[in-house]
């Protein structure tokens, strides 16, 4: 069974406490969970703790017959000067920790993943020649070819244009349901959270502020508390919910957005 639950997760950089006491209910296959919160709240550190890349107190409880290798972390956009083609870079992600031989099955998975993301035409391009958005799509491909059960995506759409953002998030949702994965996705755009995710975790000041369904979490009260903004949640003519920001809550600045 594919599931994950966090219990009293904490993390420290030297003497600085980054995270403490983060516990969640159990998340199950097919769910897309948004990880939201202000900058430097500890979102990336939480992902790295969950992926086992960073030591600290607490436990990540996985479903029966799931191993730590089932969790894949996709870091924020990183550039590279390596002389590797995109195709090689995706094969590289697939082959980590396994034999030197690249099998036809490996290539089939790389091919289908790149095709699904619409980046087959980038195959021969060098990774150092890609734009930020293209690098993010390659990053998504590198994560998916490892066939994870739990996928942790750290701001995967930050460098993408609006069209690509929607495409990638739609694909994420589809993959979660189609492959029975649990996908955690760190996002700053709360409208994307409302539209593409099922649940949300709010991290601020190194702790978990709230965790629940998107409808429960994305509220004017939460936005005021965590982001210090005055906002409304309203439905458009197609029934989709949107965050409308009216202004910033501040002693000094009261910016009105007409």
């Amino acid at each position, binding site marked *: 069974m594919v599931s994950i639950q966090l219990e009293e997760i904490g993390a420290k950089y*030297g003497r600085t406490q980054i995270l403490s006491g983060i516990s969640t209910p159990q998340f199950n296959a097919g769910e897309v969970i948004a990880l939201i919160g202000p900058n430097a709240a500890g979102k990336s550190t939480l992902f790295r703790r969950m*992926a086992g*890349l960073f030591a600290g107190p607490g436990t990540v409880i996985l479903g029966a017959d799931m191993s730590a*290798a089932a969790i*894949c*972390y*996709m*870091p*924020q956009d*990183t*550039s*590279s*000067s*390596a*002389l*590797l*083609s995109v*195709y*090689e*870079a995706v*094969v*590289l*992600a697939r*082959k*980590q*920790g*396994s034999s*030197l031989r*690249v099998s036809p099955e490996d*290539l*089939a998975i*790389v*091919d*289908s*993943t*790149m*095709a*699904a*993301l*619409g980046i*087959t035409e980038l*195959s*021969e391009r*060098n*990774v*150092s020649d890609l734009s930020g958005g293209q690098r993010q799509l390659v*990053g998504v491909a*590198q*994560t998916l070819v*490892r066939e994870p059960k739990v996928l942790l995506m750290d701001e995967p759409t930050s460098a993408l244009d609006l069209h690509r953002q929607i*495409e*990638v998030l*739609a*694909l994420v949702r*589809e993959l979660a*349901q*189609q492959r029975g994965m649990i996908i955690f996705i760190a996002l700053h755009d709360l409208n994307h959270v409302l539209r593409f995710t099922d649940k949300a975790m709010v991290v601020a000041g190194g702790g978990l502020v709230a965790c629940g369904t998107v409808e429960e979490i994305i509220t004017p009260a939460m936005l005021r508390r965590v982001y210090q903004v005055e906002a409304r949640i309203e439905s458009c003519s197609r029934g989709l919910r949107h965050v409308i920001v009216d202004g910033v809550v501040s002693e000094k600045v009261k910016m009105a957005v007409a």
Partner: protein
Amino acid sequence: MPSNTSGIAAQAASEVGAGRGHYHALVWRRQLILAAMAIALLACLCVDLALGPSNYALADVVKAFYAPEEVSIQIRVVLWEIRMPIALMAIVVGAALSVAGAQMQTILNNPLASPFTLGISAGASFGAALALAFGVALFPFVGALDYLVPINAFIVAMLTAGLIHLVSMRRGVSVQTIVLLGIALVFCFNALLALVQFFASQQAMAAVVFWTMGSLTKATWPKFWITLAILLAVMPIFVKRAWALTAMRLGDAKAESFGVNISRIRLETLLLVSLLAAIPVSFVGTIGFVGLVGPHIARMLIGEDQRFFMPAAALCGALLLSASSIVSKMLIPGTIFPIGVVTSLVGIPFFVSLILSNQKRPW
């Protein structure tokens, strides 16, 4: 991109094979380049063996390999006892230094990294100078000067590597810190070397200067076998980690997300590379250029998939040094120029022309 489940499968099926064809062509091209380099190296070895105070026909050299009884005893003795250890030493030293440079550049993510960036070579020079100038034996049980110098050089080189290793293990030490420490060590050992030369006799100073130029004439069969053994012991470890080492070039965050234990692999590679660099430098002196440029040439020819890049770096280094050995004998007949000097003079024009003509950036 499709927006429904069936769409993904349909599009995937239609595009399957497009990237794969490119990949197969890439792999095939790389195998061809490696084979061509191996053949060129074999040719270089034969020419290197044929050249010397008395030049032999290439046919005699080739015959000495597969039908030694058909060539004269004189040719056989000169080839096998005198020229062969030197020619083979050029190959293994070039390969070892180039692989060491390739992995240094990989783990430090720095195009200027080489076995000499971290002070390993400078440390070896200082250790050798202590023996040559004052007869100081850092390992007291060695009497003969033939081994006193390389053992001194090796000990100081490994102490340098050990110091870097210890600093690297400290929490929070970045790659940039390691490179800066290496540069500081280079300056420190160069100052100490100058001090040794200042206090040494004129004869000893000449010996120190000659040693630091690098020379293959110091090669013997035992030294060749030791260098080869180290190379053969270390290479399989790098081969086993080919995927992880390639991932390191995508950056620490990406490699870590692939499950690569970057701090462990960096520390272990640093130690192995130190060994790979210290042994040849101890035996033949400072040959700096190969460790820096060999990997860059290999990278431009073959890319950075370590399954191909590593053997290519070894072959490039071996070819560079073997070709330099040939040139060192041809410049003035009867005189063998220091190989370290020739390597730079031969390699730099080639390297510069490659950088200027190649579409791919060297880094």
